């Protein structure tokens, strides 16, 4: 577990540099890394996207399948988000079932998508109580260079935004999938912003170096509600450090501004 030992020299370096508002990769404390989005990168998926935040590289794919609804929501389709930390992405990742980090990541991404009510699951029902569309969102981390939450959220979002839902014909208890597609019923779009706290400074879009020495991180997702008002829709603190009340509120304000910036980069036609 030597990778859990905090490199104190690096931490001091990062903190002292931040005193003058700078970071090791040349960014200011509130700069995002260069964000690149590519959509429809996997033809066999109904939706897919790769996202880069600097060198962090993530792919998300969406597959639609017919399945059973949950008993408490018989008229609604299902969305399921999973994340895999595949071993090629980091010397620290190992093969095996998702660990707590992969599960936390998937659940934080899921919460943003779910709470913003991005996917209109009421339109994914085929036969109430029996057959609905299940949207499987699978995230693969390809290169871990920090801030997996924002990159994975954005990749999942872009994969869903550009996905196509197969058309289906319902005859009695049978569902026939047609060779035609319709756009996926989508509503408000969540944008996630993560900040790392190191010493008394907040770092937007933390790099791997920064994550290694951080006290904790805070991820905040914003979405527009029905009245087009911008709202916080999900939040997660991670890591064993603490936040003061002032830092928490400051981080949320910064995240709001940065989410507006990231929102502008979405594939055309989306807000």
């Amino acid at each position, binding site marked *: 577990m030597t990778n859990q030992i905090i490199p104190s020299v690096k931490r001091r370096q990062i903190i002292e540099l931040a005193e003058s508002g700078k970071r090791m990769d040349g960014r200011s404390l509130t700069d995002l890394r260069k964000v690149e989005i590519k959509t429809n990168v996997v033809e066999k998926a109904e939706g897919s996207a790769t996202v880069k935040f600097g060198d962090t590289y993530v792919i998300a794919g969406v597959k639609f399948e017919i399945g059973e609804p949950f008993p408490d929501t018989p008229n609604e389709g299902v969305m399921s988000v999973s994340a895999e930390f595949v071993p090629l992405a980091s010397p620290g990742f190992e093969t095996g079932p998702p660990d*707590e980090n992969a*599960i*936390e990541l998937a659940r934080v991404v899921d919460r943003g998508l779910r709470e913003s009510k991005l996917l209109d699951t009421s339109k994914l029902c085929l036969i109430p109580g029996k057959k609905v569309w299940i949207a499987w969102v699978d995230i693969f981390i390809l290169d871990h260079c920090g801030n997996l939450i924002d990159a994975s959220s954005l990749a999942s979002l872009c994969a869903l935004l550009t996905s196509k839902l197969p058309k289906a014909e319902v005859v009695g208890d049978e569902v026939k999938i047609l060779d035609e597609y319709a756009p996926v019923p989508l509503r408000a779009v969540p944008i996630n912003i993560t900040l790392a706290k190191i010493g008394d400074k907040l770092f937007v879009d933390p790099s791997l170096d920064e994550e290694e020495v951080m006290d*904790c991180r805070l991820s905040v997702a914003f979405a527009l509600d029905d009245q087009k008002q911008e709202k916080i829709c999900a939040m*997660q*603190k*991670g890591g064993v450090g603490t*936040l003061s009340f002032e830092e*928490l509120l400051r981080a949320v*304000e910064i995240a709001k501004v940065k989410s507006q910036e990231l929102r502008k980069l979405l594939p055309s036609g989306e807000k």
Partner: protein
Amino acid sequence: MDKKLITEDGRRLDGRRFDELRPIKFQIGVLKNADGSAYVEWGRTKILVGVFGPRESHPKHLAMPDRCLIRARYHMAPFSVEERKSPAPSRREIELSKVIREALEPAIFVELFPRTTIDIFAEVLQADGSTRCAAISTAALALADAGIPMRDLVSSVAVAKVDGNLVLDVMDIEDKLGDSDMPLAMMPSKNLITLIQMDGLLTNEEFAKSVELAKKGCMEVYAKQKEALDSHFRIASKEEV
């Protein structure tokens, strides 16, 4: 989804005011085998926490040369919810185990016990909302009961938005039907946040108000934690050496 969560006279479904906690009763030292233990009845939420350690890390490769490894397991009994829950840990339980550990670890002097492990086991016997908050607050008492050196206790509570109102200490139905849920944990005498999560839709102003209400709730939980420690250890404090 149209069920009203706030009655005409501005009360919640269990009769509480918006800023009122449910009855909370902590008990300390309830298990013989554990090095520290505590139990809570928090409204209808019932949780038992046992702490073991610090003890030699097993397997050995988990040991960290400069500090103690903290492990936490949040687990729900199959009979703790309306529909039987599979006893295998769910993704939700794995995530909650992680955030609970991260909420408690800042309070523990981990550097005093290199190469050892502290295990925190929280078993939810009955769930009626705010289980992670109750588990954290109870685990803090179990850690204190184990005599593990800590900077502070950790107190936790959740705030929800239901029918447009911010309410303190969320019960299950408010969590399920409400518009937002925000668990927060803090070290009360340090005024530092160790856990914050949120889902639902809130403006920045509403969020700031939720945080304020959660802080007030945490201080009330803290008072009950101190009360529980005081009544459990009061006898021992009369000891003469």
